[in-house]
């Protein structure tokens, strides 16, 4: 191998007297896509924050192109040709694509303080053309689909002549097609000599797009290997440490044909894409709902939960039609929404207050909240779900993604729901927390809770579901017993609307 383009050697970093990085080394070849993996708290974001100048290192050296560079702040990192690609949050939605790309560095009309709009648009168009994407530089960023925003970010980085891009979970909010397009772009960037650090929790993705993988654990690099010939199991083992078992393997939980269904969705038609959807879920059953992004999965979940009204059709729970969200919650339906930071948590409130939120009525007597009683439940939740927090009063903002998701799950499990709906339950959650969440859900289902899981990660649906419903074109096109689905590819095909199979079971 040639000498690396970027070389981070023996990087050390402590916060207070707690070491976060212990002599970590990481290198990046020219035109390489290098995956950086690790559980939350493994140190990968700290390492990248040192590279991008958010933090300064305590020890070690960084060299780029053979020259030692001193990255003291974000500006120095930018000068060294390093750019962090944020998903969408660092763009101003009310400005145009070109205005965003050149924000703060707008070209001027010669000899004047006025912005040279024509030049700005022209140069943006050039960069976008080079990237091979059809985005109008004069379109407002707010009007673009999410997938395009990331591309604008990349264009912005290239306009600053970045040679190293750091991409953090770049596909977490992208649809299948957008992900494909992004991969295409990554390959193109690579061909033009750009090096990419690719942070993701998604194994399949990494094995598809990356050249090498580095896994970090507890502030150290535990593995750096070429992707070719590497197995998912090997990566998981490196992330969790040897001898760690994972629940992320499918378990046959058997059929329950005799139990009457607890949830019956009948001919549901929604204002969105959903045309005519019917299905049943029985107590103790874990049902996966697969479909493309935008196929109406979330809308179906929110309709069952009573947050949306159907155009026609009905949702029957335990023999009675549902009447709105209060009724749904009252009768034991829980929804873990897709965006935990926006819809799941009050981030500036403590773990305790968040867990209590849907349980307030239960702990309130004569207007007053029984805090002592409530605390027992909260501590139980923290213990049962293995939420890593200093205590119940820690702000949920300060917890990692996996632990935040456990709070959202925990606040509903504290109600002992009869139907739990999980919408993208493990986005941005590391593999350790992921297996714990899956194990918890499985244990609750074993005790009779019905579960509906929505996920864009087929791997996850394959791991957890007893049955998988495929939503396509506004209808449930297939109802698959998990036992009969041989591979992710098969499921993938079904979601795309190919290869119709005979529907296994039509709800009566």
């Amino acid at each position, binding site marked *: 191998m040639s000498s690396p383009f970027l070389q981070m050697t023996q990087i050390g970093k402590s*916060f207070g007297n707690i070491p*976060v990085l212990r002599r970590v080394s990481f290198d990046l070849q020219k035109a390489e896509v290098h995956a950086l993996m690790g559980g939350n708290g493994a140190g990968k974001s700290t390492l990248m924050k040192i590279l991008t100048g958010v933090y300064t290192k305590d020890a070690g050296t960084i060299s780029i192109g053979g020259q030692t560079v001193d990255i003291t702040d974000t500006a120095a990192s930018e000068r060294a040709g390093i750019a962090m690609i944020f998903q969408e949050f660092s763009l101003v939605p009310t400005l145009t694509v070109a205005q965003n790309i050149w924000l703060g560095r707008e070209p001027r009309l010669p000899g004047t303080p006025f912005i040279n709009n024509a030049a700005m648009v022209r140069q943006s168009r050039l960069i976008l053309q080079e990237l091979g994407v059809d985005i109008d530089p004069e379109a407002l960023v707010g009007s673009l689909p999410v997938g395009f925003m990331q591309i604008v970010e990349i264009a912005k980085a290239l306009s600053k002549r970045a040679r190293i891009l750091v991409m953090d979970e770049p596909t977490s909010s992208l649809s299948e097609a957008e992900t494909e397009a992004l991969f295409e772009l990554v390959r193109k960037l690579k061909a033009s000599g750009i090096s990419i650090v690719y942070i993701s929790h998604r194994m399949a993705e990494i094995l598809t797009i990356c050249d090498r993988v580095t896994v970090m654990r507890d502030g150290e690099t535990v593995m750096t290997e070429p992707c070719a010939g590497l197995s998912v199991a090997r990566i998981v083992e490196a992330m969790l440490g040897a001898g760690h078992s994972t629940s992320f393997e499918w378990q046959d939980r058997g059929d329950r044909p005799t139990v009457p269904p607890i949830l019956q969705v009948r001919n549901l038609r929604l204002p969105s894409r959903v045309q005519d959807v019917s299905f049943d879920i029985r107590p103790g059953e874990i049902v996966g709902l697969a479909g493309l992004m935008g196929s109406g999965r979330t809308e179906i979940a929110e309709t069952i939960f009573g947050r949306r009204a159907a155009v026609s059709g009905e949702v029957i729970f335990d023999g009675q039609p549902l009447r709105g969200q209060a009724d749904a919650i009252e009768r034991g339906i829980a929804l873990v929404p897709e965006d935990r930071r926006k819809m799941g948590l*009050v981030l500036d409130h403590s773990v305790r207050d968040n867990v209590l939120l849907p349980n307030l009525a239960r702990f309130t007597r004569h*207007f007053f*909240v029984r805090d002592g009683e409530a605390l027992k439940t909260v501590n139980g939740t923290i213990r049962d779900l293995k939420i890593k927090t200093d205590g119940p009063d820690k702000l949920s903002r300060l917890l990692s993604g996996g632990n935040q998701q456990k709070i959202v799950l925990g*606040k509903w499990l504290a109600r002992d729901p009869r139907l739990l709906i999980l919408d993208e339950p493990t986005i941005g959650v590391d593999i350790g927390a992921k297996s714990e969440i899956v194990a918890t859900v499985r244990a609750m289902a074993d005790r009779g809770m019905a579960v509906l899981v929505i996920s864009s990660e087929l791997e996850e649906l394959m791991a957890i579901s007893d049955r998988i419903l495929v939503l396509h074109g506004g209808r449930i096109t297939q109802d698959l017993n998990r036992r009969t689905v041989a591979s992710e590819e098969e499921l993938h095909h079904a979601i795309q609307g190919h290869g119709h199979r005979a529907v296994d079971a039509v709800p009566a």
Partner: protein
Amino acid sequence: MQSKATATGRLMPSLPDIQWQNYVVYIFFVVVLGFFAVMIGDKGFLSVTNLFNIARTTAMITVIAVAMTFIISAGELDLSVGSTTALAALVCALVMQAGYAWPLAVVAAIASGLAVGLLNGVFVTMIGIPSFLVTLGMMQFIRGLDMRVTYTNPISITNQTYNGLFGSGYVFGVPSLLIWSVVIALLGHVVLKYTGFGREILATGGNRQAAEYSGIKTRRVKFYAFLLSGAAAALAGMLYAGMMQTARFNFGEGAELMAIAAVILGGTSLFGGKGTILGTFAGSLLIGTINNGLIIMGLDVSEQMMISGAIIIVAVAFGKKPGA
């Protein structure tokens, strides 16, 4: 960004983080009190009469600010409270002038405050207009109504039972205004901190969407907050009327801004989700103490305003969390 906090927060579980920013209002209060004690202690600043005086003059702001803490914690704003104090004072005085018993006047005054709160609540929660605009318009409208109702003439209140209870009187040597503000602050503290409604207010302001998804009826919660604010403004108006033994159209001018300043000084987040009534009480007392001290120091009104304005900015700046 909160990135630094996230990293350190996760990795340093054992270090107790004392956030002195949360106590800025108390620190400032002690400092200001100490400053005045040294400077003008000999001019009667520390006398019981003067301290009671501070309590009396801040009572109205305190009462309004307690309700404002609920409004701001729920992520809203109520600018109409100042005009509402005058409305309630006038209603109260007019009902008594018409010969009805004072309890009836009190009920009518509270009802007028509730009516304003109800209108605000309807416009904000049912029609969906931002509270800043609704209550800005309402502030103007009600002030106009205040002027119209008596053609700007003051109405004096001669009922001494009323005046004693609401403003001028003493109970065991303690001014009734002080008792009112302490009772209201304690009540507010208990409701915000220990009741389901209080939690719902904070959750609504902290993240309305997450609260909704958790089954909190956030529009109802905000509606109640506006009712509360209207009622509190009415009480403040009655206290003011009781103290002055009269009601005037210009009562409570600028009170809404003083109340907001007290709330923010006390450590409540202007963005909602985090509120403290005890902080608000201290914030209100701080403003009152500054004004009182500057008067005793013999400063001109213009100078008083400049200094108290500057102190508010400095105190809020000190209370700001680094990087937040």
